[in-house]
């Protein structure tokens, strides 16, 4: 209890600001300052969220979206880390791929959907691949940088103490890059979620993005907000989950535990 009290004093702003925002919204919608048709009261939205959860609608869509995020993130992570490491290790590869990546990376990934549909089966596979594009670039960039920023003196010392080839990679270059790889994974996971939901809005009949868009079109605004809330919560949970995983796996990183 005491620990909770201390935690609350320390993180008062973190907890307080969203609550204050919700209270202000509640008040504004109740008094008619905000039009309740477009901005229903948070308490009403919460009731709708409960209904969606109880009748099972929400779980099905959430499971679909989660599976898509899982596939696209895995695809992006495996390819991004592998290619990022290779680019970090070999200058020629880096010099060859950098300009290509620089051109493709800034294109909003949803725009790849038609293109991807020509190459892989349209539908589920195209959705997953499209959602992996931006995520892949982020992970590859940070991984490359992660390899390149390793202290040269540390590498020199490792070589001096007999680490060569595979051992140099496994004991020095990979662990040295890992903090950056994790940053890339966290960013990439966020982008997988963003693009999965965006593609669901454009082209899917299931998933949270589809549910959100449908709710909007038939003007079930409360359901739209409820879905909104679920997507936001999902994003936060995934991001913090990955951060927690990082803290567990990389106890040697100085800033772990300082947040």
């Amino acid at each position: 209890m005491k620990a909770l009290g201390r935690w609350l004093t320390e993180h008062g702003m973190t907890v307080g600001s969203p609550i204050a925002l919700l209270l202000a919204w509640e008040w504004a919608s109740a008094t008619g300052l905000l039009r309740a048709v477009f901005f229903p009261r948070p308490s009403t939205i919460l009731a709708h969220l409960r209904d969606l959860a109880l009748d099972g609608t929400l779980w099905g869509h959430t499971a679909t979206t989660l599976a898509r995020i899982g596939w696209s993130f895995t695809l992006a992570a495996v390819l991004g880390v592998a290619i990022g490491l290779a680019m970090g290790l070999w200058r020629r590869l880096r010099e060859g791929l950098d300009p290509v990546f620089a051109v493709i990376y800034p294109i909003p990934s949803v725009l790849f959907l038609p293109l991807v549909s020509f190459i892989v089966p349209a539908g589920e596979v195209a959705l997953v691949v499209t959602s992996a594009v931006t995520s892949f670039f982020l992970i590859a960039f940070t991984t490359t940088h992660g390899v390149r920023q390793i202290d040269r003196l540390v590498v020199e010392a490792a070589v001096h103490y007999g680490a060569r080839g595979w051992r140099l990679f496994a004991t020095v270059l990979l662990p040295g890059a890992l903090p950056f790889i994790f940053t890339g994974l966290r960013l990439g996971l966020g982008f997988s979620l963003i693009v999965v939901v965006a593609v669901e809005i454009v082209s899917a009949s299931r998933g949270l993005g589809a549910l959100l868009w449908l709710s909007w079109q038939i003007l079930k605004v409360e359901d739209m907000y409820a879905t909104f809330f679920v997507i936001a919560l999902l994003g936060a949970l995934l991001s913090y989950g990955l951060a927690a995983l990082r803290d567990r796996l990389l106890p040697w990183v100085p800033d772990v535990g300082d947040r």
Partner: protein
Amino acid sequence: MPTRDPKVLVSEVSVTFESHGRSVVALDRISLQAQVGEFLCIVGPSGSGKSTLLRVLAGLVRQSAGEVRIQADHPGTPLTAMVFQEHALLPWRTVRDNVTFGLENRGVGRAERDARAREMLAMVGLARFAQHYPHQLSGGMKQRVGIARALANDPEVLLMDEPLAALDAQTRTIMQEELLRIWATLGKTVVYVTHSLEEALLLGDRVVLLTARPGRVSEIYPIDLGRPRGLEVRASPAYGVLLEKIWARLREEVVRAIADDRGADPEEIGA
């Protein structure tokens, strides 16, 4: 004194770097030797190639000309092990795993590695910190790990590249005493690079003075201040005389190095 082969023999070693299309001579025909069990200190102004010389001995830099010979008395152990200036520990390895890193790379078994790590960490006074990560240690403790890592390999020659330069003055003094104690215990041949003449006089059997770039051997001074030596040696008249004598020569080189950096005439710096 019976004549025996020197432990370290450096003859006519030159190192030339390519830098921005120009070739820079870092070391110019360096010749020196270290006897078995000797503590040899190398001093010189910045840019005199002290660290480069050490890297040649470590096999990390290849000389452009000349020869380096290190007498191998114990087959199976590495010729050299280096203590780096900024400790250069692997941040993702615990203290123990840093100390055993060289052994691991050479395929030494786990039990022997652990025993060796315990022994070395006890010697540098870090037995209780085996499971810590480098970032949890102070600067002085990190450098103790660096020393334990080098010694764990039982090298023929211990190379030290300004190992105490990054530490605060008090920690440095403590570490100097520690080094003397460890060296007396193990009797290793040490080649020790420092920019501090005081440190060289406290630690060394002989001091090699290098000139400003290009690094040449200017003078080699025997330090006859007796052993075992402690901090109290700094109060002895002989120490003061030696310090004055070598500093007069070192000062010329330092001024020359500063003038060289600024592209100025040594007269202007106050030589």
